[in-house]
């Protein structure tokens, strides 16, 4: 493993971890799904470097491709698909819960 | 003959795959596929039990000798559980014919196959796969039972069991990185040198919590009351009666074969005690029958965890006695809850409407409490003697909690029995009182007969369980059977 590979691994690790944090913190559900599909993508690249081509292919096809598609379709049917949400709440930070607005 | 032992595991899968196609052409043929497969599975396993030698054996799948391949390990305990799975699958078969029959029956077949796999498999990761299959099939069956609350309880169960599966995978990764193998026998061989350390303890704890989700272990059992309250009685009975015991079986095997650390045992003891306390108190406060049964099930499993924490073979005997006793009783009680599922208050005077159901309920309750001639007494007595023989103060706490829990149990069960036999409320005529459905009542009576039979033949049953426990506790036997006596291509 060369020094270049080490740097790549470090960058990928950073990307994956920050994407994972993004998933939890970001306000918009569409953005969260997008961030959630970056995680398997980064992992797939990591798996290539870790000499696991089979796993990398599966992770890319299933984790990054299929699973994002499933989540996106679900978002559409859940009615959460809105690119620039004005009224969406943050996920972790407490705000007035949205259900009361429905009442 | 012994080669055929793979069939009870594989045929239900085969049937499940084909069922949607067959149902498309003919529902009347399709409706018989599942019961036929399960009956055949019962026959194979029963035949093995009767004709088989007393020695356990191992079956290499794919002909690859363990530890390279996956093997099934069949001893008396595994055989007993596998037989119970097939039989209960048959008893709790979803006969209802409607638009979704094919899917529901296919899921039930998958559940049976996966449970059989849990009973027989001798490979850690293979156990994980079957465990997940059990999980997915149950999510479907719970959600299929209808109401909106069923969906909500299913998603809660799904998320908890997702946490559990992540932790289990983590534990498996830790074990593999340390030992390089996943075969239970091979692990048992390597464990004294390689897993008797902090890493091994961490791996055990993660797997304990992960598998504990299904075994209704204390901190991860919050799904239990809602799921049992919303799923159909048959599904609840299968989950509470059998699936929780199979998760327990995994923990038992891991504990006996691989993890011998005293800390592991202490953690289990503490979690078991907490489970007993929380479960029994909540059951006492519960206001509807299903939730009362669910909480009582948490308490009972806590007792089994306490018994698991007793290191000797006697502890194992207590575990088995409590396990099979609870299997019979809880399955039967949930069948009664099929008609009596609502609020406890509404059951006032229900004995007049359905005397048989009330009698069976009293029989089960007395055995659950531990009334002397019934098997429950014998099971609890075994545990008490074993606990009293331990010196560590933690076990004495366990004993105290256990006795207290029995008192609470008696309080809420007898309260309900008194309600059943009490006078009906003034303004309700007898005919409007709830009554368990005919089929469920018949199934419950079967369990009642089984319980009475066990009470009559308590001595041979005890001998049998002792023999089973002896075989299960014998680590060397397990290692030698799997690693030497396989008929694979070596």
């Amino acid at each position: 493993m060369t020094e270049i590979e080490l740097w790549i691994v470090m960058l990928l690790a950073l990307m994956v971890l920050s994407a994972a944090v993004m998933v939890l913190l970001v306000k918009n559900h569409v953005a969260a799904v997008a961030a959630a599909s970056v995680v398997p993508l980064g992992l797939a690249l990591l798996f290539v470097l870790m000499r696991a081509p089979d796993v990398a292919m599966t992770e890319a096809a299933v984790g990054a491709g299929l699973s994002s598609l499933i989540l996106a379709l679900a978002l559409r049917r859940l009615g959460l698909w809105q690119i620039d949400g004005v009224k969406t709440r943050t996920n972790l930070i407490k705000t007035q819960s949205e259900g009361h607005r429905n009442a | 003959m012994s080669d055929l032992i793979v069939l009870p595991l594989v045929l239900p899968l085969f049937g499940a795959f084909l069922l949607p196609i067959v149902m498309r052409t003919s529902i009347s043929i399709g409706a018989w596929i599942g019961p036929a497969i399960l009956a055949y599975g019962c026959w194979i396993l029963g035949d093995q039990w009767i004709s088989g030698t007393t020695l356990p054996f191992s079956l290499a799948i794919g002909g690859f000798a363990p530890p390279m391949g996956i093997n099934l390990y069949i001893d008396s305990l595994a055989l007993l559980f596998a037989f119970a799975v097939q039989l209960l699958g048959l008893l709790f078969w979803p006969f209802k014919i409607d638009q979704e029959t094919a899917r529901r029956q296919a899921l039930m077949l998958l559940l049976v196959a996966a449970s059989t796999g849990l009973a027989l498999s001798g490979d850690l990761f293979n156990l994980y796969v079957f465990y997940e299959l059990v999980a997915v099939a149950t999510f479907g069956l719970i959600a299929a039972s209808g109401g909106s609350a069923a969906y909500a309880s299913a998603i809660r169960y799904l998320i908890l069991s997702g946490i559990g599966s992540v932790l289990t995978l983590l534990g498996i990764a830790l074990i593999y990185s340390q030992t390089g193998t996943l075969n239970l026998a091979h692990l048992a061989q390597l464990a004294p040198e390689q897993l008797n350390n902090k890493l091994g303890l961490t791996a055990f704890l993660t797997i304990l919590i992960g598998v504990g989700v299904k075994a209704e272990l204390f901190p991860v059992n919050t799904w239990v009351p809602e799921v049992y309250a919303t799923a159909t009685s048959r599904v609840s009975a299968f989950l509470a009666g059998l699936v929780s015991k199979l998760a327990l079986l995994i923990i038992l095997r891991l504990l006996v074969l691989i993890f011998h650390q005293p800390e592991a045992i202490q953690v289990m003891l503490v979690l078991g005690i907490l489970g007993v306390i929380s479960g029994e108190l909540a059951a006492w406060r519960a206001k509807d029958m299903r939730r009362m049964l669910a909480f009582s099930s948490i308490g009972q499993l806590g007792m089994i965890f306490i018994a698991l924490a007793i290191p000797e073979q006697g502890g194992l005997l207590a575990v088995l006695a409590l396990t099979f006793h609870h299997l019979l009783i809880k399955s039967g009680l949930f069948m009664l809850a099929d008609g009596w599922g609502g609020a406890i208050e509404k059951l006032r005077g229900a004995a007049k409407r359905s005397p048989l159901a009330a009698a069976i309920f009293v029989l089960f309750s007395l055995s659950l409490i531990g009334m002397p001639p019934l098997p429950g007494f014998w099971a609890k007595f075994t545990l008490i003697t074993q606990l009293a023989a331990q010196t560590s103060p933690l076990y004495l706490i366990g004993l105290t909690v256990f006795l207290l829990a029995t008192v609470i149990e008696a309080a809420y069960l007898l309260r309900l029995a008194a309600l059943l036999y009490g006078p009906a409320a003034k303004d309700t005529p007898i005919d409007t009182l709830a009554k368990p459905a005919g089929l469920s009542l018949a199934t419950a009576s079967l369990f009642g007969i089984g319980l009475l039979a066990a009470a009559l033949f308590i001595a041979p049953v005890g001998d049998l369980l002792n023999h089973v426990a002896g075989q299960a506790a014998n680590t060397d036997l397990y290692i030698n059977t799997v690693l030497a006596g396989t008929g694979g291509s070596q």
Partner: protein
Amino acid sequence: MMPDISLELILYTTALGLISIGLAGVVLSRHLFRMVLALGIAEAGANLMLVLAGYRWDAVAPILTTLGEHPPMVDPVPQAMVLTAIVIGVGIQALAVSILIRIRQRYGTLDRSQVVERMDAEIADTASIPRDVSQESPLGERPLPSIPDSTVEIRGGHS
């Protein structure tokens, strides 16, 4: 020559970080959809951990390219297991979102505490018992927000 230890540490921290972030997300999230997403992240971390368990620094992928002598390979067994685990994970995720779709239709919300409230209310309702408010107090004493009527457009706009 770069130090071995740091690479090992990076991968290991990534795996554990993903698991921790994912599990924390599941525990903390207020929205059921985020919980499903977080679960996926934790599973990805567990998968990385499993691949890591069979990884050797000096080895090639476990595919024979030449007959006869071959250089050392990484352990194929964990890779096979991860293949299985990935597909299992996506199956469970698909099932989870389809249940979420139904919950959203029935309850009109995916907020965790609201769904739990409604579920409790419904169970108590079907069992026809007065609701046990003391357990969930003060939440239980609050009147439930009404379910938006069925004309709410499920697909598309925010209700």
